[in-house]
């Protein structure tokens, strides 16, 4: 079936196979089977890895949005269905907590001794994953609208509010601003970003006790509410598809969007030339006098399963490293913000790079953060609709989180 897939992938692959690899890439025999989310960078890596197939090496990939539902049982079975799980800093934790992924130090020493430290995800001194791309939400603004409104490009959310007010009061736009503020995961993420920007900590250090009932969290919520006052009233349904469409339609001038959407926003498709020409990607703003951007940094990387033979593990590691070799990355620079010395930043990645440089925090890699994120996403909407105060909403979040974390054994 690998052959079939490879044939269907067509010419792009043929070129890759010609430049990067002889059959087998010198890996030797083994089974490589990848479970991953569905995004361009992982397509590139998987295709390059698949080009190594041959000489007893098989490479298959299952790229699906449901990867998180599948990777846990898929890696739990023995032997594991998948030898490689591609994850992000949030989704690695369940695999790690169950001991389903193996430390990679030996494999790195043997096959990739020159791997830069920035690619290594280390837990307690052991490398558990190899990161290959970075992402974050950051500010997008329309320079022409800001000019017409007579305001300078904002660097803090307070300035964003002022700019939105200026655009609105000049009658340029009715709803000049958008965030990915849809109830659910997106709204939870916006809160975490803003709260981190306020300098808040989600948990009491060293424990699984949530610590979000404090003035910083209230300030973060108030700021989000003030921002969404300049959004279309539908804002509680906004996901990335909605906000990108809004941006491309030219109906908004300020937005916090995912960096990985930058490429699609800057291309000629879906938007008028005026919008594209004046779109500027900038670091995520700071908030409340804080010094770091109110955003969290994300990485995507790969892990190797525990429940497979050492041969398959070695083959999988090498195939993935071949997939993210310098040649592959140079040929696919627009696919992602690659974590590689071979990568030259593109205009679409400027915003994320600026956000990283300004010192934004990484999204916490904690075993229970997913539970809090879900609780935030499910319980904050009543505050925005005005039926609860910020304190009430945060108390509801804490209660929901405590119930879930107790059930999962994180809290007693």
């Amino acid at each position, binding site marked *: 079936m690998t052959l079939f897939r490879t044939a269907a992938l067509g010419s792009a692959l043929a070129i890759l196979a010609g430049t990067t690899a002889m059959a087998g890439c010198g890996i030797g025999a083994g089974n490589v089977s990848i479970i991953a989310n569905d995004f361009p960078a992982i397509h590139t890596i998987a295709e390059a890895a698949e080009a190594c197939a041959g000489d007893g090496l098989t490479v298959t990939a299952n790229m699906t949005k449901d990867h*998180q539902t599948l990777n*846990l049982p898929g890696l739990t079975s023995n032997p594991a269905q998948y030898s490689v799980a591609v994850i992000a*800093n*949030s*989704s690695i*934790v*369940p695999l*790690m*907590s*169950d*001991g389903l992924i193996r430390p990679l130090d030996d494999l790195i020493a043997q096959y990739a001794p020159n791997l830069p*430290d920035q690619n290594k*995800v*280390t*837990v*307690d*001194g052991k490398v558990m994953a190899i*990161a290959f791309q*970075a992402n974050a939400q950051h500010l997008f603004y329309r320079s022409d609208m800001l000019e017409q409104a007579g305001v300078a490009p904002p660097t803090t959310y307070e300035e964003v509010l002022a700019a939105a007010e200026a655009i609105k009061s000049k009658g340029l736009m009715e709803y000049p601003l958008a965030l990915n503020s*849809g*109830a*659910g995961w997106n709204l939870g993420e916006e809160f975490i970003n803003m709260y981190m920007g306020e300098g808040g900590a989600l*948990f009491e*250090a*060293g*424990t*699984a006790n949530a610590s979000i009932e404090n003035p910083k969290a209230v300030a973060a919520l108030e700021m989000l509410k003030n921002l969404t006052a300049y959004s*279309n*009233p*539908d804002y*509680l*349904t906004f996901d990335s598809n909605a906000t990108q469409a809004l941006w491309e339609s030219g109906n908004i001038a300020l937005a916090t969007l995912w960096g990985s959407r930058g490429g699609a926003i800057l291309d000629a498709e879906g938007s008028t030339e005026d919008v594209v020409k004046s779109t500027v990607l900038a670091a995520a703003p700071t908030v409340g006098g804080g010094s770091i951007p109110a955003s969290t*940094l994300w*990485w995507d990387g790969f892990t190797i399963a525990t429940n497979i033979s050492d041969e398959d593990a070695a083959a999988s590691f090498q195939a993935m490293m071949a997939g993210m070799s310098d040649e592959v990355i140079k040929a696919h620079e627009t696919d992602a913000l690659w*974590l590689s010395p071979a990568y030259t930043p593109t205009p679409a990645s400027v915003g994320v790079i600026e956000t*990283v440089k300004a010192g934004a925090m*990484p999204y916490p*890699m*904690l*075993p*229970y*953060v*997913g*539970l809090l*994120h*879900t609780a935030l996403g*499910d*319980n904050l909407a009543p505050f*925005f609709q005005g039926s609860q105060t910020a304190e009430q909403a945060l108390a*509801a979040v804490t*209660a*929901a989180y405590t*119930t*879930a974390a*107790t*059930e*999962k*054994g*994180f809290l*007693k």
Partner: protein
Amino acid sequence: MPHRTFFWFILPSALAMLLFIALPIVSVVIQSLYVDHDQVLVVSENCGPFGCTQSTSVDAAATAKLSEAAPLGRFNGLGTYLNRAHLATAEIAQAWRTSGGMAGFLSQVMSLPFYKALSFTVAYTAIVTPLVILFGLAVALGVNGLPRMLKGPTIFVSLLPMIVTPLIGSLILYWMIDADGILGKALQWIFADPALSLKASPTLTWLTLFIYGIWHSTPFAFVVFYAGLQTVPEDTLEAAMIDGASRWERIRYVVVPYMSPLLVFVALIQLMDNFRVFEPIVGFSAQANATSLSYAIYSDLRGDNAQYASAATTSVLTVLGVAILLTPVLIRTWRDFNRKRA
């Protein structure tokens, strides 16, 4: 029918259901009585592409030892059923004590996740089910009266809402009802309110979901009733006409009783499907204003930490809810059944 014959007729079907539904249900019920082991947490230095931090993680080896000793987890009895995410008995008792009046008590209860989901689920079921049956029957009677030539195309068009996969169907409608979409603009024009948005207000979101539910399910009722109409015996109808029965009387006293098994069937299936409403909530991004029991299960199972025990509990509660809902229909079926035996 002799037991032996019955057994062989039903065996293949029963086997499939036993293996793939009954066994999993047993395991779901067991799972709902257990929760995860205490996780052994350790603090260590974690590094990544964006620097190092002191961070907590699970000691996999120590936790694995715990779960080896008791693979099902900690026995929790009905604890998960009664906790805040489900029946929330303690929270309700607390609300009863502290809230001043009935209104305050109800608003506190409705802010609990399970009751919030239940209220939409029940409202959806109560409104969509009868309307679907009514519209389905009306359309079936209408189509049945059409000239033969037109029947085929009409049936096809009538089935469209059900054919187009809900995943995409609801997404397309979601864009059409957007304040900038064609239906959204049309509504703004009809009601002369340029600020009208179906997505912003809870009431309008509920209404939208109800209308989508009716639109999506009417074809099902229509097809079943239409097929049933084809088997209504002509001579009985003719006899009724000769006796001077009006069209309405013929429907009321001949067609409806004759189709009563199908009516019961459609009612059962619709009650059940509507009680499990899920797809439109995701399709219309309506989580802020409407959640359902099925949505709660979905939300428990996805995400970075799947909560199996919680999902199992909500599933069992859903099945119980369906059972309660179906009781009147079941009693009716039981009576019919006994009449058949007699």
